[in-house]
């Protein structure tokens, strides 16, 4: 069934600037959110939420580029700083003050590593935005699928959790839906990485006994979750692959917090 509400026009910074307008917040999509098939859907869902609550926002569209995070973690500081300085020029050119990201890696880099290079912005991750919207009463859980009593577990992305101590916002967004939030044996500050960080996403793993995502998916299966909630496009890929590999895609869904929010509100 087609949902007419999903046909929304996404505003870009360039268009806004041409009309002499400045949005309240920039939605930084990120490379995965722009190119990865599954992540693109999550990107559109984040836009649906922004649209639904009526925040004035815009994206950079084709002007956006890599923050430089994977280059930096892989040791290529030159490339990182080149990307960072070009991005800062772009952001400052549009006089951007506040940014919401769809990716914990972009979030971490812009928030923590850009200030030292002259880029100072207020940066939040989309799960934090969702929590704020819920707290402000702007986002309800009505008109969509019910998650009441569903066994959902949350996989902490390293760069949101340990990296920046954001543990509660994503959980609050899930608890708001009256789900049965269950924790895996390794969670929060003890959470296990999905295996994609530090530029591992872009290379083959070193020889070993097994892949890291399989180790993590074993935790998900052990927790007997119906849904594993993610908040990072790379975790999304790793978890989805792992669950497929275990042939569990019938029993366990992998959903981003933004997707769950959109479903719960029928957006």
């Amino acid at each position, binding site marked *: 069934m*087609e949902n007419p509400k999903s046909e929304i026009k996404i505003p870009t910074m360039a268009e806004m600037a041409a009309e002499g307008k400045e949005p309240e917040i920039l939605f930084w999509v990120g490379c995965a959110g722009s190119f990865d098939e599954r992540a693109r859907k999550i990107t559109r869902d984040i836009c649906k939420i922004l649209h639904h609550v009526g925040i004035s926002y815009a994206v950079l569209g084709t002007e956006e580029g890599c923050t430089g995070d994977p280059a930096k973690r892989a040791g290529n500081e030159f490339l990182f700083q080149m990307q960072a300085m070009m991005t800062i020029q772009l952001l400052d050119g549009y006089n951007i003050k506040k940014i919401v990201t769809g990716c914990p890696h972009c979030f971490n880099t812009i928030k923590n590593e850009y200030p030292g290079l002259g880029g100072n912005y207020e940066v939040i991750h989309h799960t934090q935005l969702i929590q704020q919207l819920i707290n402000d009463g702007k986002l309800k859980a009505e008109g969509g699928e019910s998650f009441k009593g569903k066994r959902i577990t949350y996989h902490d992305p390293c760069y949101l959790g340990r990296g920046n101590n954001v543990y509660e916002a994503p959980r609050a967004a899930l608890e708001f839906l009256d789900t049965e939030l269950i924790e895996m044996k390794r969670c929060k500050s003890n959470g296990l990485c999905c295996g994609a960080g530090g530029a591992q996403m872009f290379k*083959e793993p070193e020889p070993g006994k097994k892949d890291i995502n399989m180790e993590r998916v074993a935790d998900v299966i052990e927790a007997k979750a119906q849904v594993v909630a993610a908040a990072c496009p790379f975790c999304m890929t790793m978890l989805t692959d792992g669950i497929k590999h275990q042939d569990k895609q019938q029993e366990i869904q992998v959903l981003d917090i933004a997707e769950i929010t959109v479903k719960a509100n029928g957006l």
Partner: protein
Amino acid sequence: MIAQFIFIIVLAAAVYLFSKNVAKIRRNILLGRDVNRSDQPALRWKVMAKVALGQTKMTKRPVAAVMHFFIYVGFIIINLEVLEIMIDGIFGSHRIFSNPLGGLYGFLIGAFEVLAVLVLVACVVFLCRRNLIRLKRFSGTEMTQWPKSDANYILITEVLLMTAFLTMNAADYKLQLLHFEHYVKAGSFPVSSLLAPVLPNNASALVIVERVCWWFHIIGILCFLNYLPYSKHFHILLAFPNTYYSNLNPKGKLTNMASVTTEVKAMLDPSFVPETTGEPGRFGAKDVTDLTWKNLMEAYTCTECGRCTSVCPANITGKLLSPRKIMMDTRDRITEVGNNIDKHGKDYHDGKALLGDYISREEIWACTTCNACTEACPVNINPLEIITELRRYAVMEESQAPASLNNMFGNIENNGAPWKYSQADRFNWASEQ
């Protein structure tokens, strides 16, 4: 009189040797590059009080935490007793605090005895965990003969010291009951009085037991002190400065390299005039002297407990990488560099390096930068920082990244994304359903 003389000589020698070795370690640490870790002193004191003094990060593993706490508290408090031993040793007195402290003295000695038993129990449990139960955390490629023996030596020494302490008290107690010579009634002996029956009843034999244990106890402690600089047990001292100089930034934040900033600015803006910043260093780290003094201090602080390795996703899944090994290799290498300086002067190069001779490329490329190791470390050590510096060297100085990562760099450079997609397609998601 002769006893006092011997005691003073032994004490002076022990203190001298210890300070010499500590000075050497300090010199080695300062071979590292400079980094500013002196901002926000109030917060730093707080972190130190919490993590080192309060041992808050130990609580994640409750059994180890409780046992370690016994040893820690026991050791600190029983060392008050050592103060008395020192004074007695120098002035030839016996239990000099018993008179001025009166009733409190009895209570203190009683408390020391209870603690000594707790320390004994904890040491035995730890020895069992290492040698009988063989916890996985205490094995691994880096846990070769020496680190394994090191841990056992320490535990056995502590068992012996505590046993000597209790036997000494038992003999003293018995002599007190006999009203023998200067063994006046002092202290209370809730534990050692139970040992009394196994000791001889003859006063002169008791005096021998008491004196032998007294000397064994104090010389044991002085030997232990001098063993510290060679051992993972050095953490009992370095844990404090190491946590004081902790990284206070969010864990996700990596340092931006100032030397690179200058070059990138010059590339983007030809009119940019860089400030001259002295000699151009290496990008990243090839050897230990390219690391910061804080990295090196951490290497000397590492207790080889393996908490980091046991939570490392790479290690758990059978990769070669072990964050504990990163720290132990760094320590071994900086010790070697220091010894070379002592032997051959400061310009000597042995042709070896941390990257390659100690830590392999396979290890550094397996890291996901997940920060599980830094989170787990009870004394706030950061193995990830060293891994990152080694990667920086491999990429920027040697151009030796794995081929797939070089592709990723190329993509970012050419089309602004780590994959080979055209920049023009970046906004296509908006027009899909």
